[in-house]
C-alpha cells in the first residue's frame, strides 16, 4: 500500500513536471539564426517602450541575429543574475548598474569587453565613466546612463526670497547653501531643505566628493585606511547644522526616501529637496497645477561639483556563445541618438556625450519651468516633440509627461531654466579616491544601497566615480 502511495505521488510530480518542460536548453541558435536574450531593467513606460522599439529596429535590420527582450526588475536583480550566472542560464546582454558589477566581474560571469566594442563607442563615453566598469585590467560593462544628485527647488519661493540662484557655472558653496536654507526657513514649520537620507552612506559619501572628501586612503603598504578628514566632514556637518543649529531642515525626513519628501515639497513645507535627476518625472506627474519648480546643481566644494555616480550599464555574459553579436547589439543600442532616446525614456543623462555632441546634441536641459512644460527635441531649425509626449498616438495620460529637453546643434538655445551644456556636463566625469596608480590590493566599494564592503580579490580595484556638473 505504502509503495502505491509513493508511486502515485512521484507520478503526479513527474506528470506536472513533464507538462511544464520547456525544452529550451539550447544556446539560442535555431536554423542558423542567432538568438540573443537582452534583459532590461527599464521600468518606466517610456523607457520600456524605447527599449522595445530599439530591439524591434535591431531585429528588422539584423534578421540573422534576433534579440529577445526580457523584462527584468531592479528588485532582487543581483540575486537573480547571480543564480542565472551560476546556472549557466544568464541572458546574453545584461542591464545593471556599475556598483553591482564588481561581484560578477570578479566572479568571471561577465565578458571582458575590451576588443569587442567599437572604437566609436569607446571614444563616445568619457574615460572616467569607463573607470566605473573597469575591474582589474578588464572592462565588464558599458556605462550609458547616469543620475547625478541635484536640488529640486520651489521656484517661486526662491525668487521671492531674493537669494542668488545657482547655476552649473556658479553653484552654491556648501556654506552658502547652508546660509540660503537658513534664510528660506521661517522657524515655524517651513524649511529651506528636506534631506531624504534613507541611504545616508550613499548620499553623503557621494556628495562629499565635491568637498574633497575621500574617507578611504591607501597607504604605501597597499592597505586602505579610513580617515575622516575635513573634506569628509563638510556634507554631514552641513546637514547636522541645518537640522540641529539652524532648524532649516526637518529631522523628520532624515529616514525618508526621496519620494516621501515630495508631499512636503509640493505642500510648501520645504523650499528644496536634494534628489536624483530622474525624480523629475515624479514631480511632473504629481506636482499641483501651477506649482513652479526648477532643477539646481548640488552645492560645490573645494573640488567643484564633483559627486559620485553609479551609471547604469550593459554587459555581456561570459557564458554567452555569441559575445561579438551581443557587443554589436550594445553598440547599436548606444549609438548617440539611441543613447539619448534611452536617457529621455529613463529621465536620466547619457554618459556618451561626446557622441551626442558629434550627433548634434548641444545641450541637455533640465526642467526649469512650470510642471508640465512640454519637452521638445530641437535639431537644427526643426523642432520635434519628445517621444514621451502624448501626440504619439496614445491617449494622453492624466498628466503631461516630458520635460527633459535636448537641444541639437543649430537649435535656438532657451534662456528659460538651467541649461546643462553637454560639453561640460556630464562629460568631465572624474574619478576620485582611487586613481589608476592605486589599483592594487583590496579596495572598498560603495554599494548602491549604502553598504560598504571590501573587494574580494587582491590586485583589483574598482573606481568610485565623480561626475562634474557645469
Amino acid at each position, binding site marked *: *500500500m*505504502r509503495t502505491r*502511495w509513493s508511486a502515485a*505521488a512521484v507520478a*503526479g*510530480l513527474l506528470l*506536472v*513536471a*513533464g*507538462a*511544464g*518542460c*520547456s525544452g*529550451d*536548453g539550447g544556446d539560442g541558435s535555431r536554423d542558423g539564426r542567432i538568438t540573443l*536574450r537582452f534583459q532590461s531593467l527599464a*521600468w*518606466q*513606460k517610456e523607457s520600456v517602450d524605447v527599449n522595445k522599439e530599439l530591439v524591434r529596429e535591431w531585429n528588422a535590420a539584423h534578421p540573422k541575429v534576433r534579440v529577445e*527582450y*526580457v*523584462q527584468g*526588475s*531592479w*528588485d*532582487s536583480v543581483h*540575486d*537573480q543574475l*547571480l*543564480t*542565472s550566472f*551560476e*546556472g549557466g*542560464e544568464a*541572458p546574453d546582454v545584461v542591464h545593471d*548598474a556599475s556598483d553591482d558589477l564588481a561581484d560578477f566581474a570578479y566572479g568571471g560571469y561577465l565578458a571582458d569587453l575590451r576588443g569587442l566594442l567599437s572604437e566609436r563607442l569607446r571614444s563616445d563615453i568619457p574615460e572616467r565613466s569607463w573607470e566605473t566598469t573597469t575591474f582589474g585590467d578588464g572592462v565588464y560593462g558599458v556605462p550609458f546612463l547616469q543620475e547625478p544628485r541635484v536640488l529640486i527647488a520651489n521656484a517661486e519661493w526662491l525668487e521671492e526670497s531674493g537669494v542668488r540662484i545657482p547655476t552649473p557655472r556658479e553653484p552654491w558653496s556648501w556654506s552658502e547653501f547652508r546660509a540660503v536654507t537658513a534664510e528660506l526657513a521661517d522657524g515655524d514649520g517651513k524649511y529651506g531643505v528636506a534631506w531624504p537620507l*534613507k*541611504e545616508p552612506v550613499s548620499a553623503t559619501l557621494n556628495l562629499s566628493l565635491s568637498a574633497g572628501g575621500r574617507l578611504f586612503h591607501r597607504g604605501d603598504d597597499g592597505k586602505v585606511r579610513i580617515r575622516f578628514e575635513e573634506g569628509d566632514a563638510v556634507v554631514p556637518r552641513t546637514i547636522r547644522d541645518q537640522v540641529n543649529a539652524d532648524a532649516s531642515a526637518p529631522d523628520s525626513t532624515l529616514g525618508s*526616501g*526621496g*519620494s516621501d519628501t*515630495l*508631499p*512636503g515639497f*509640493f*505642500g*510648501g513645507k520645504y523650499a528644496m529637496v536634494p534628489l536624483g535627476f*530622474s*525624480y523629475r518625472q*515624479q514631480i511632473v*506627474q*504629481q*506636482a*499641483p*497645477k501651477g506649482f513652479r519648480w526648477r532643477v539646481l546643481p548640488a552645492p560645490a566644494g573645494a573640488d567643484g561639483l564633483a559627486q559620485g555616480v553609479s551609471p547604469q550599464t550593459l554587459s555581456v555574459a561570459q557564458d554567452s556563445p555569441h559575445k561579438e553579436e551581443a557587443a554589436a547589439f550594445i553598440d547599436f543600442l548606444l549609438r548617440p541618438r539611441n543613447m539619448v532616446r534611452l536617457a529621455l525614456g529613463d529621465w536620466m543623462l547619457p554618459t556618451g556625450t561626446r557622441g551626442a555632441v558629434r550627433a548634434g546634441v548641444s545641450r541637455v536641459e533640465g526642467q526649469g519651468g512650470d510642471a508640465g512644460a512640454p519637452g521638445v527635441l530641437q535639431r537644427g531649425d526643426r523642432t520635434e516633440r519628445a517621444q514621451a509626449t502624448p501626440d504619439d498616438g496614445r491617449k494622453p*495620460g*492624466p*498628466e503631461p509627461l516630458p520635460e527633459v529637453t535636448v537641444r541639437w546643434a543649430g537649435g535656438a538655445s532657451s534662456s528659460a531654466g538651467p541649461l546643462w551644456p553637454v560639453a561640460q556636463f556630464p562629460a568631465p566625469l572624474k574619478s576620485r579616491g582611487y586613481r589608476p596608480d592605486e589599483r592594487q590590493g583590496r579596495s572598498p566599494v560603495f554599494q*548602491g*544601497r549604502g553598504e560598504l564592503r571590501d573587494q574580494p580579490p587582491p590586485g583589483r580595484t574598482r573606481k568610485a566615480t565623480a561626475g562634474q556638473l557645469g
Partner: protein
Amino acid sequence: MRTSRRARAGQYAALLAYLVFLAFPFLWLVSTAFKPPRELASLHPTWLPRDPTLDNFRQAFDEQPLLRAAANSLVAAVGAALIAVLIATPMAYVMARHRTRLAKAATGWVVVSQAFPFVLVIIPLFLVLKNLRLIDSVGGLVMVYVVWALPFALWMLVGYVRAVPAELEEAAAVDGAGRLRTLVSIIAPLLAPGIVATGLFAFISAWNEFFFALVLLKTPEKQTLPVVLTHFLGAEGVADLGPLAAAAFLATLPSLVVFALIQKRITGGMLAGAVKS
C-alpha cells in the same frame, strides 16, 4: 464568571483596534489605487480619494500583462496546493499514527527545513531544475512550491490527524476496511477542514511567492503576478505608486475571496473536538 459591561466594551474596543490595525494596510492600498497622482503626493492625505479615478487600473493593465500573469499565478498556486495536499495527507497520517524513528526524523526535517532562507537554496535548486530541464517552466515552479510548502503542510496535517480518534479506525478495521479504505472513507472526510486549511496555506504561499518565480522563469509570458508587480518598481525603491497599488489590490482579491468562502470550514475544523460534549 460574568463579564461586566465595561470589561465587555473594552474587549470590543480592543478587538476593533486590532481589526483596524490589520485592515489599515489593505484599506490604504484600496484608497491609493483610486487616487490620481497629485493626490498621492498630497501633504494632507485623505482616506477617501477626493477625485477618485480608474486611471491607475487602466494604466496598470495597459503597461503590464496582469491577466496573463494572474493566470500563471493561478495555475502555479492551484497546482501547488493540490499536489501538496495529495502528498502531505498520507504522509501526515503515517507520521501521526506510527511514531517510529522515521516519523521523528521527518518531524525534525520539517522543523529544520523552515530555517533555510530562499537565497541559500536557490542556486543548488536552480542547478537541479536545470538538469531536469525545468527552468523557465511553470511545472518546475509548481514543483518548487510543493517542496517549499510541504514541511509546513505536513506539520499542520499531523495535528489534524492526531485529533481524529484512533478508535474510529479500529472500528473500521473491525468492519473489514483496509488501510486505504480507512484513509479515504473515514479519515479524509474528518480531515476535510484541515485539508482545506492546508491547501489554502499552500495556495496563498504560492500565490504570493516572488523570488523563486523571478529566478526560475525567464520568458515574460510565463511570469507570475508578484514578478510582474515589481515592474512598477524602479531602482532605489522608486515606484509608480498608483498603478502599483491598483495592481496589488487586484492581486489580493483571490486570496480574500478564497478566505471568505472557506473561513467557516477552517475555524470549524480548528475547533472540532476541542472539548467533549
